[in-house]
């Protein structure tokens, strides 16, 4: 008889897998999962801010390839994910979601941007740009495909993300972090925290260096989180069914540039 080697489920911050600085964990899905502290969350925001310029500065083609690479890596671990989620269909949906958004990377600018015919001798155009650091609260269920449906549109346009995983089903999120770590997603672009949403969400919503927050995955009353988000005028996303370039657009700024036309 061989005793299986069990995995330690840790946080994913800045490209590494630390335990919670608090040294705490909670037992869930038959494992001791890291219980992220407020300080872990602040560390994750710092890592995301540092990673943001590089990710935003990559060509859209390149970002698209990285997202496609995530799909490839997930495909190779389909069995593992199916075991965790108990649903092959959910895994398929998550993988296909990455592929779908990968293809959007170099099309968002064309669909969401414009050149604007102003009444004067000026060239004027509008382009979408990432807003910066985005906080994403993953829905409790489905733990994997629900998470990917929120995460992929947030990063495809060049944002860096701090993600709070499903509290009751966190293992898929941690395993996804291992996929991200081996998919050419630069460290810090996605940071995954496991723990108590009631502790973490308010800190994320009120953090002054987070530009936008996706509350679609929050069950129950979000009013207090929205109030906290006003402290630095965060963009707040409240819902988002299915897949859509508009989900990506919710985390993009529109920049308009004017230049005179002349000789």
């Amino acid at each position: 008889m061989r005793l299986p080697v069990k995995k330690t489920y840790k946080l994913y911050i800045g490209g590494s897998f630390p335990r919670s600085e608090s040294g705490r964990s909670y037992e869930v899905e038959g494992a001791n999962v890291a219980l992220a502290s407020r300080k872990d969350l602040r560390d994750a925001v710092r890592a995301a801010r540092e990673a943001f310029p590089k990710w935003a500065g990559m060509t859209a083609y390149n970002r698209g390839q990285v997202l496609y690479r995530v799909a490839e890596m997930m495909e190779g671990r389909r069995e593992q994910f199916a075991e965790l989620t108990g649903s092959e269909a959910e895994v398929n949906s998550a993988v296909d979601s990455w592929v779908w958004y990968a293809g959007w990377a170099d099309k968002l600018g064309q669909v969401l941007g414009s050149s604007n015919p102003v009444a004067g001798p000026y060239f004027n155009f509008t382009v979408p740009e990432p807003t910066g650091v985005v906080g994403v609260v993953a829905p409790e269920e489905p733990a994997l495909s629900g998470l990917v449906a929120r995460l992929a549109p947030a990063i495809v346009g060049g944002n860096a993300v701090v993600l709070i995983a499903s509290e009751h089903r966190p293992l898929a999120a941690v395993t996804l972090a291992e996929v991200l770590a081996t998919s050419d997603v630069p460290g810090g672009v996605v940071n995954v925290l496991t723990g108590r949403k009631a502790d973490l969400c308010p800190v994320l919503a009120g953090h002054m260096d987070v530009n936008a927050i996706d509350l679609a995955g929050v069950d129950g009353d979000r009013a207090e989180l929205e109030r906290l988000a006003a402290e630095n005028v965060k963009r707040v996303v409240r819902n988002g069914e299915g897949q859509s370039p508009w989900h990506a657009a919710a985390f993009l700024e529109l920049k308009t540039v004017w230049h005179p036309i002349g000789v």
Partner: protein
Amino acid sequence: MGSPAVKQDRSLVPSAFEYAPAPESRDVVQLEKRYGLFIGGEFVEPRSGEFQPSISPATEEPLADVAYADAEDVALAVTAAREAFDDGWSDIAPAERAKYLYRIARILQERSREFAVLESLDGGKPIRESRDVDLPLAAAHFFYYAGWADKLEYAFPNRTPRPLGVAGQVIPWNFPLLMLSWKVAPALAAGNTVVLKPAETTPLTALLFCDVLRQAEVPPGVVNIVTGDGRAGAEVVKHPDVDKVAFTGSTEVGKEIQRAVAGTGKKLTLELGGKAANIIFDDAPLDQAVEGIVNGIYFNQGHVCCAGSRLLVQESIYEQVIAKLKRRMGTLRVGDPLDKNTDVGAINSKAQLDRITELVAAGEEEGAEIFQPPCRLPEKGWWFAPTVFTNVAQSYRIAQEEIFGPVLSVLTFRTPDEAVEKANNTPYGLSAGVWTEKGSRILSMAQQLRAGVIWANTYNRFDPGSPFGGYKESGFGREGGLHGLEPYMRLE
């Protein structure tokens, strides 16, 4: 004004020659003695029973008494808007809705002189600007969005756009009619009805706009105008039957509104403050750049959220730029807003003058060096001379806080990276200017500046087709262009 900033002798007028006064006639404007609230297509007495005068900032003369709406008044306006929405405005053939907006655009063009004079009277801005900027742009905004009303499905691929319902809109005093048009035109084009709260100090053009609605035969209740102070605005924002809140104003109030709307599911757009960097590289065409600097900060007395209030000059041309700027400032004519030669008009209110005065005093105390050209300021009214501060450190209040007045803070930089770093070192992100002859540098700067509008080799240009709005604490959502529709739609 009592500020240390204005103790210098203004008796010398350095212009090469004197201008004769060229005042625009006020006769074109016929004001009522007092105005009620415009609800359900007619002026009604406010339930609050309260009226306050709207005052001309150039002369301190009361122009007309204006109703101050309370919660009950706002509720009546929202009910009227809801009924108009349910009674057909949202179902009217889009092509017909478009025609109402075209009518409004045309009437604004036809009555532009009347509106321009009233705008300058009530708000203090130079007639040259209200005539050549505010009015043409307001009319153009309605004309632009009129065309969208029956083409909305082309704006959102693969989605079915629907109106939201009642839009509650609160606008500022710096471009009263223009901000009204930025709010009302897209809201109506998208099929919503409106409750609009004009700014406390500049309600009169919005009230005259009610007559445009009458002439255009816009159905009663489609646009309701409730005048008053911040209390009325707060009532509009928090009314439970308002589906959409749009606000233009200070970041401080914007945050309060975002908090008030939290948890209600109301759609929100905020167009808030700014502290824009106007960046001059050593290869820029300097005379044009100096015109851009002046237009950037002294346009509309600097009462502009996207004003280029932080000048960033490359060190090698610093002396030259400052010398040219000071010389140019000496030719600015400050005075009667109705005089066609006036460049800088009156400060909009006593409260705003106090704020400017306080920040300018702080700038001097913190160690910045002040310059104001000699100029005669009128005895009555609220005025502030064009001001530039040099020797400014980034930490000074005048480099950090929005002054919303004709006050420029000058900083320097050596490299493009340093310019980007300094320009982005602010919680705001509304706009920025870049002046250089090098095309690749323009594009690289435009990419790195974290702001919603970048003016390259120009400044303070606006167009209904050009999206406008901020990054970071300058707000979210865009006004203008195709992108200005989405804030007023539900995409199914």
